[in-house]
């Protein structure tokens, strides 16, 4: 695992929003790697750039957004400059994606069977009956009960959890190398979320699919990810293997996020929750120096003036913080 070259490399990637009065940088020089068979968790609050980052991998950025620097490479091939035709062939085949709201991603006027079978017809050129049989198989593999009945039903007949299982079946139909999951369990109930996370972990083990898992919930990331990157204001502030991150969080923002969540099964509940003071700054109005410094409990003079460098603080553990930089 240590020596394997990354399957997917995000290399100094920047994304700008093109506004009337000039570009505003939303993702700023992000470098990350996804190894084969690994789950990479991207965690951060709204506006941190985690979703943009994931959309940019499949070149699904909305109009007005553009990759303004850096590159994304799949097994060495650059995706940022690939022609649209080639990207389209890759979507669903080599890299596929699932979204937060499975209702909007499924077409309400076609049956579940039609929609799952379409993937096999499009990408593998199977006949209708063959594709139908494969659809039943694919639904069974993601734990949809009585799939031969479900293929005749419409998305509205299914619960949120079942719809997300259907989405996962479609996404994994062509055995892609990489699955991008953008908050796939956020819209689900707690007990259903636990089932879907369990399912994704199982599929990842069985098929060896690599997953980029985006979430605002550090708890969800703790359950699914092998490696975690914490984003703040368009930058990676800390990344580490999951066990290392939770054992030894080094960035004050990471520590703040961990302390801010009351845990229902904790031994003791604190009287006051750990707060991160202030608000997330808006893009285009970012503070100078370290972007976290106005909210940071340990900020010093240098943090207000100068961007902290990314330093290694352990095996595969990197942090962008002056305190860590001084200690190392």
């Amino acid at each position: 695992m240590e020596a394997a070259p990354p399957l997917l490399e995000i290399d100094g990637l920047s994304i700008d929003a093109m506004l009337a009065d000039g570009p505003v940088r939303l993702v700023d020089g992000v470098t990350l790697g996804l190894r084969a068979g690994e789950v990479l968790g991207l965690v951060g609050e709204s506006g941190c750039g985690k979703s943009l980052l994931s959309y940019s991998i499949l070149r699904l950025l909305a109009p007005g957004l553009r990759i303004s620097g850096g590159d994304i490479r799949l097994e060495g091939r650059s995706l940022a400059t690939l022609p649209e035709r080639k990207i389209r062939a890759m979507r669903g085949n080599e890299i596929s994606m699932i979204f937060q709201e499975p209702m909007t991603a499924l077409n309400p006027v076609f049956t579940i069977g039609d929609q799952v079978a379409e993937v096999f017809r499009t990408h593998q050129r199977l006949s209708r009956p063959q594709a139908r049989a494969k659809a039943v198989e694919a639904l069974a593999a993601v734990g949809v009960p009585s799939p031969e009945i479900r293929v005749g039903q419409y998305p509205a007949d299914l619960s949120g959890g079942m719809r997300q299982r259907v989405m996962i079946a479609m996404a994994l139909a062509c055995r892609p190398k990489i699955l991008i999951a953008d908050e796939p369990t956020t819209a689900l109930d707690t007990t259903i979320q636990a089932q879907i996370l369990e399912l994704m972990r199982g599929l990842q083990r069985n098929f060896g699919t690599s997953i980029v898992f985006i979430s605002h919930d550090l708890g969800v990331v703790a359950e699914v990810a092998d490696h975690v990157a914490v984003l703040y204001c368009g930058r990676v502030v800390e990344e580490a293997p999951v066990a290392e991150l939770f054992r030894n969080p080094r960035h004050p923002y990471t520590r703040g996020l961990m302390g801010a969540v009351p845990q229902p099964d904790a031994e003791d509940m604190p009287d006051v929750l750990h707060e991160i003071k202030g608000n997330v700054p808006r893009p285009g109005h970012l503070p100078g120096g370290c972007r976290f410094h106005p909210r940071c409990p340990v900020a010093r003079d240098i943090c207000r003036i100068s961007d902290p460098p990314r330093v290694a603080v352990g095996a595969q553990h990197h942090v962008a913080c002056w305190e860590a930089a001084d200690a190392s």
Partner: protein
Amino acid sequence: MQAELLRVKNLVRRYELRSGLFSRQQRYIHAVDGVSFSLNRAETLGIVGESGCGKTTLSRAMLRLVEPDEGEIIFRGRDIRSLTKEELRRERRHMQIVFQDPFGSFNPRMTVRELIDEPLSVHSRDSAAARLERVREVMAKVGLDPRLCDRHPHEFSGGQRQRIGIARALVLRPELIIGDEPVSALDVSIRAQILNLMKQLQEESGASFVMVSHDLGAIRFICHRVAVMYLGRVVEEGRTEDVFREPLHPYTRGLIDAVPVPRLRPGKTRQLLTGEIPSPVNPPRGCHFHPRCPLALKQCNSVAPAFNEVGGGRRVACHLFAPTGGIDTPAPVPVEKAGLAGRRPDQH
């Protein structure tokens, strides 16, 4: 002070389903199906459950924002179901609600000052100057700069807007505040700020607080007591610390275990609940939870468990904790009589 502020008895709220032209039977969804609890002054109660459990309907029904079909709501010693419209309007100043969505719940044309003043101008006869004084005081209390009172809500962030919502609820010094998922729309770092604020304000003001949420961590942090709901019924109720440290109902246990927490928990055995949340249109017979229950007994699919006191102010609706057993519901009950059918022995 252990005086009772609110007592809800056998509250039922059902919604009629539009049925087919030739259907003989009128069908109902029992969103709230015979819920009883009481709330003391200065006490906080959490109502927790997943979608369709009825927690939001319950929070609306106890204020008569939706009209209950059956049951009593004794608030400050009077059954508010018997009040006239005008009497209810006057009583409303003592009960306020904070909504989940701080973006959708304000009139965008009003300034923060007008928004917070609105309940005062409706319910109090104070002069404009006195009211402004109170608005400023409440703004400061919830951590908003009173100098910003002439701005509009869109100029504030999500967390600040929720502070405005809390200020609006507090301005009349109500005796009961209901929070309907008050922190669910907020980012993690902001959520902690608002939870700390709500806890502090509740302790200072001595108001009673009912927090409706699917967020078990938030409930455990804020609430003295908790009621866990499943498909319209309360399945477990007790002191928060007791319920979270030692959940008795298998659903409560499964729910707590299903929450992903931001820490490592190696080797911890968790019981993941299987199956889906059934449709409230056709709830399973007997105990609603039995098809998903890892510990279901023989009688669970036919007999609804009684809501038994198990000591320490704790109640559980589960056959595992019911030495006396429940009442028989041997055959499917015609739905016209469903109000009676769902009734349990403790509800007379």
